[in-house]
């Protein structure tokens, strides 16, 4: 077991208004989420001395601190895509353990749905001209993210016989969880046939293999083991963390069927002194159905190549053997661009037993895994309660 296990805990979580928030900027949403997370913890804004955030604007964390009226003495703006907040958890745990900060705020918001409608959409399609992808991929009509994940799905199907029906199982299970979550965007029933009949986006991925586009933000408060014992909610211990990135451009991915979750997962399990069979609940990044399947394999929940068969029979759904993505995930709850913070919020609430109709019983351990970029980065966080 690693020296950092149980040295820090999640003590507060909160989301902003979610879904479609055309009257609010990302800063308003961050403040709202932070306020709710502080209230959840029973802490004050001035208790925060460490700030961890990720966003696409220049010096965004500096901007966020000004807006919130805080002057952190430890600050981390790591931007690894959707996995950023799992990276932040590891960084916050390390900083807190080293005594460099005591109470960390991890926060983020984006408004891509509203931005699209008001003509302010950030384009993924144009990077800086000197970036390798701009020179060697974009001239061929590549764009991020659907075709790049489709390339991985196609390769997995070729190598292991994975089918579109198996991928659809993941989308259907997510929808069943979403139907139990009053905050979810898409709650109507969805069948495998509905997924297979949805419009083709980039072969083999169809519309219902792809996540939603939503506005929203979240905040997570992490503090020392000592301080966590006297707060409003029971501490959700950080048992293990791991992070890795293996490439940036999809043509640079060493093996299209293996994500860096293999590396980040091994590290997190080692730190926690746990194995996949010890994990009660999974919160996996579901930007696409294939993303979930690859993580199940890479994190060791099934052998490489067996992901398709593993998810059959609604194994991930309510009542299934391996409950996963209990909020409804990026596929049916919401997806703001970097979903990783919502994985942590949902896991903390499940571990505290606050999830109502969708509560998994009994659950003592949860694994959150964020994936960012073109299957490029992965952050694993294993959480537990006493």
């Amino acid at each position, binding site marked *: 077991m690693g020296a950092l296990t149980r040295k820090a805990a999640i003590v507060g979580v909160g989301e902003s208004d979610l879904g479609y928030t055309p009257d609010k900027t990302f800063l308003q949403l961050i403040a709202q989420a932070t306020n709710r997370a502080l209230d959840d913890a029973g802490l004050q804004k001035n208790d925060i001395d460490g700030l961890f955030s990720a966003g696409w604007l220049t010096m965004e964390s500096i901007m966020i601190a000004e807006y919130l009226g805080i002057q952190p003495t430890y600050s981390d703006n790591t931007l690894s895509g959707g996995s950023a907040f799992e990276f932040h958890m590891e960084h916050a745990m390390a900083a807190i353990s080293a005594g460099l900060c005591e109470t960390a705020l991890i926060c983020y918001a984006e408004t891509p749905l509203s931005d699209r409608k008001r003509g302010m959409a950030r*384009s993924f399609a144009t990077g800086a001209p000197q970036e390798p992808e*701009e020179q060697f991929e974009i001239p061929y009509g590549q764009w991020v993210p659907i075709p790049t994940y489709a390339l991985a799905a196609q390769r997995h199907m070729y190598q292991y016989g994975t089918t579109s029906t198996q991928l659809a199982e993941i989308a259907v299970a997510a929808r069943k969880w979403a139907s139990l979550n009053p905050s979810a965007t898409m709650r109507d029933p969805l069948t495998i046939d509905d997924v297979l009949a949805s419009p*083709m*986006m980039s072969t083999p991925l169809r519309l219902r293999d792809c996540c939603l586009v939503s506005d929203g933000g979240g905040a997570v408060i992490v503090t020392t083991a000592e301080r966590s014992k006297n707060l409003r909610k029971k501490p959700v211990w950080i048992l293990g963390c791991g992070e890795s990135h293996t490439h940036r451009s999809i*043509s640079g991915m060493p093996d299209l069927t293996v994500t860096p979750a293999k590396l980040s997962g091994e590290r997190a399990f080692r730190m926690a002194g746990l194995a996949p069979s010890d994990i009660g609940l999974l919160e996996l990044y579901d930007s696409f159905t294939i993303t979930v399947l690859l993580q199940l394999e890479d994190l060791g929940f099934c052998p490489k190549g067996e992901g398709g068969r593993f998810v059959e029979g609604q194994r991930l759904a309510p009542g299934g053997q391996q409950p996963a993505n209990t909020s409804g995930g990026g596929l049916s709850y919401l997806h703001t661009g970097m979903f990783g913070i919502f994985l942590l919020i949902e896991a903390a609430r499940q571990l505290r037993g606050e999830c109502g109709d969708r509560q998994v019983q009994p659950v003592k351990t949860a694994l959150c895994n964020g994936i960012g970029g073109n299957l490029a980065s992965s952050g694993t966080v294993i959480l537990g309660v006493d």
Partner: protein
Amino acid sequence: MTADYKKPLPYIHSETKAYWEGAKAHELLIRKCRTCNRHHFYPRDLCPSCFSSDVEWIKASGRGHIYSFTVCHRPAPSFEKDVPYNIALVELEEGVRMMSTIVECSNDDLKIGMAVEVVYDDVTPEITLPKFRPVSPPARERS
């Protein structure tokens, strides 16, 4: 060759100039490390395997196979008229992988593992994009 080519074009700099000049001359140049003998793509001044600066340009055979592909039904900006179009990751005989497009082949006939060879698309007077076609084009359906 069209003067009104509106799609994105590469920004050429010291590290990639030889590659794009090669393409213009209808040669596929890739980098090979003289220290560890490994090829790499995209071209870099330092070998990404052993970090040697002793990297040479070699002329690739231009043959390889499709490692993966996707048919895009939603376009990248300025590719709207091409939908559905394919992008592919081609693994060259030298062992490196590059993104490209498969031409002279219907999207329905694309297969992972298909043997392909380079062809050159002179998209502007300055820029040529290496693309690939099946080595033995699949028999066309008789109409």
